[in-house]
């Protein structure tokens, strides 16, 4: 039963990494889109795609936390107390990102949009970095069982943690570009399709390079993690992730963007499952096994029952939301972010027609 609950936690982690990761990665593209005029269309596309879904996407994180503290309370207490610096940082990033995004949607002048956009974009980059370092700290065995017994800084400011933090930022950017390109294709905005397609290809290649180069870092810095990732189930899923990653690049290259959405998600699934295999049977390597960390059976049973019931309501709701989103029903009209605040000029492209009147 502990395995099933771990599976739930991995499901929540993967869903957060893919769905919220795409929103966080959008912040990276927002940050790098250039000046107000040049980046206006990219930012408008981001605003349009994220608005209806980012809150629901974010809730996967809450779900992950809840599963962890209910099913693996000692594990939860140990990581939260030792890794308080990056987790506090991530929490602050979450406040700034969510609020600034919501406010930018209501901005009245380009300067307001600029300020809140910068806050939104910067914190969107910090959140995956901090979460990445947390994953790195856990995977490389930096978290002992106990109340803040690990090193407050060195536990997460070490080569493996920083590597995974950077990889998380780039991967989010990659997934985000794939999703935004697919959204742009659905909305019939060819210039945006191209803009995000190239970004996806670039970020995908960089992410792949960091992942391969990073193996050397992990080899010298966290040997047991390296061994776990390069043998048995860990190796199978690492290879699967690499193959699917390359496949996604090919799909993006050949403009099969709707399919690429799913393959990019599958690549993330392979990474989280591979991580679980690499650490098996430990939750905290060398410190705490899955079975020792698991709560009593009565709790696990109750959790699984309530999750089962909850999913019966949640899944149809989610399907309804994503169907409306993919049909474009909920999307706001596309509008370059800077254009809201100035009159149209001849150099602006004509406003696209509303697909669903």
């Amino acid at each position: 039963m502990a395995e099933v609950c771990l599976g739930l936690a991995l499901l929540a982690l993967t869903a957060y990494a893919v769905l919220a990761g795409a929103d966080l990665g959008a912040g990276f593209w927002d940050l790098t889109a250039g000046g107000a005029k040049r980046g206006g269309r990219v930012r408008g596309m981001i605003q349009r795609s994220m608005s209806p879904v980012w809150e629901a996407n974010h809730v996967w994180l809450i779900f992950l936390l809840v599963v962890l503290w209910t099913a693996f309370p000692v594990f939860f207490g140990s990581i939260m107390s030792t890794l308080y610096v990056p987790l506090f940082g991530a929490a602050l990033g979450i406040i700034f990102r969510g609020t600034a995004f919501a406010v930018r949607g209501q901005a009245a002048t380009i300067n307001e949009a600029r300020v809140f956009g910068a806050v939104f974009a910067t914190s969107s980059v910090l959140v995956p970095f901090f979460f990445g370092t947390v994953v790195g700290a856990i995977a490389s065995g930096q978290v002992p069982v106990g109340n803040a017994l690990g090193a407050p800084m060195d536990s997460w400011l070490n080569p493996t943690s920083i590597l995974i933090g950077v990889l998380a930022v780039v991967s989010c950017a990659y997934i985000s570009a794939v999703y935004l390109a697919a959204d742009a294709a659905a909305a019939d905005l060819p210039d945006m399709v191209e803009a995000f397609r190239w970004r996806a290809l670039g970020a995908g290649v960089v992410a792949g390079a960091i992942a391969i180069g990073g193996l050397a870092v992990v080899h010298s810095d966290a040997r047991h993690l390296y061994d776990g990732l390069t043998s048995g189930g860990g190796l199978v899923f690492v290879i699967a992730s690499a193959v699917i990653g390359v496949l996604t690049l090919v799909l993006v290259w050949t403009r099969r963007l709707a399919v690429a959405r799913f393959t990019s998600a599958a690549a993330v699934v392979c990474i989280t499952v591979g991580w679980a295999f690499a650490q098996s049977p430990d939750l905290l390597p060398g410190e705490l096994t899955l079975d020792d960390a698991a709560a009593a059976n009565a709790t696990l049973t109750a959790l699984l029952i309530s999750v089962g019931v909850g999913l019966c309501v949640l899944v149809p709701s989610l399907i309804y939301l994503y169907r409306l989103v993919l049909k474009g029903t909920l999307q706001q009209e596309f509008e370059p972010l800077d254009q809201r605040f100035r009159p149209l000029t001849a150099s602006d492209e004509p406003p696209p027609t509303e697909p669903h009147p």
Partner: protein
Amino acid sequence: MDPTVLLAAAGDFTGKLGSPDQSDLVWARETQALSLAVHIPLVCFGIAFPAAILFMEGLYLRTGDLTYKALAKRWSKVMLILFAVGVVTGTILSFEFGLLWPNFMATFGDVFGLAFGLEGFSFFIEAIFIAIYVYGWDRLPKRTHLLVGIPIIITGLTGSLTVLAVNGWMNNPVGFEIVNGEVTNIRPWEALFNSYFWHELAHMYFAGYMVMGFTVAGVYAFAWLRGNRTKYVRAGMIVPLTIACLAAPVQVVIGDWAGREVAQHQPVKLATFEGLPETTKGAPFHFFGWYNKSTQEIEGGIQIPDMLSILAFHDPNATVKGLDSVPADDRPGPINVVRFAFQAMVGIGTILAAAGVFYALVFLRFKRLPRTKWFFRLIVVAGPLAMVALICGWITTEVGRQPWIVYEIMRVEDAVTAASSLPVAFGVVAAVYIALAGTVAWLLRRLAKRPPEVEVGAQVEAS
């Protein structure tokens, strides 16, 4: 289980991670308190605002009057902003449970965690349907649009129900046993449906309707006082005001029920409401005054004989347990904080209930709104007052629970993190929340300044 077993176990119970070495406990508590104080008013809007918006939209569907639509649409935008801020501040809370109280989570997460699991689902479904509702204006068929609002109301109820189940459990911990310092025989469903959360739920749910109703009505009452008597302002005021004025008198009854539950299950907390030093038959209640810790007496203030006994047991001769019923270590520290919070809550609640009764009487007798300007002036400040009462109520119950995080089982000093820099964390959180509050206030003010025509793209009828 037998309470004496709990008490016997309490002395040496330090939880799974052991008693931490933490000199900044007070900063952990202040950080948590501040974060809750920011989040709870937002929760009120999550609980109550959807119902008001749907009512307004229902009026629009029945009458076809665009005024109602403009109001419903405008409010739904406000709801979305407040929900977004509620999402992030709520996320901070779940982080803080672990960051500030790791030993509490590690020791009892498997007992009460289930409730948060259900809360997570409520929250998730709420997020989905709020998005569909707000972004679905003019895009979904009218009836469908109204219907997708209903899950928001339901999840507002189930979400607060499950969170309050956890708070009820902290105050009335059941569903487990402690044997040799270990938490064992966990019964999560029993913990979830502890007997304590029903009155907390009712009290908070009505508080949500009062805070939302008076706050929203206050915005339009302000315009009303300045002479804006358009239909838009009138409808925007009457709907939330009626909701709040109906809820306020009922809240007095629920508060009385809550007080008697506290008297029965947490006599020390009740004694703290008054600062009652000794177990007394026919215990008095003091308005104002100052509890002096060294003399254990209330200095100054207006004494009402037998009133605490009446409040707690509906009997002037009832015996009320005093603070001396437990050792000094097991009593809340800041008695006066609890006293004044309790008195502020009761005082404000009484004023708002009186306003509600007045509004209802005028309507029943004359079928019109009150004419006196003082009523509308009161409504303008009633929203902030209701929020003060809300926070004071939470201070009453949470500070009154001290020094326990799990009542009479685990102390906050054993639950706290051993990590350093807690004062820094408090400073950062305080600065962030001040900025957040300023931003939201600025944004809502700006939203309110836009003419209602923006929402519906047509002239809104002004009568």
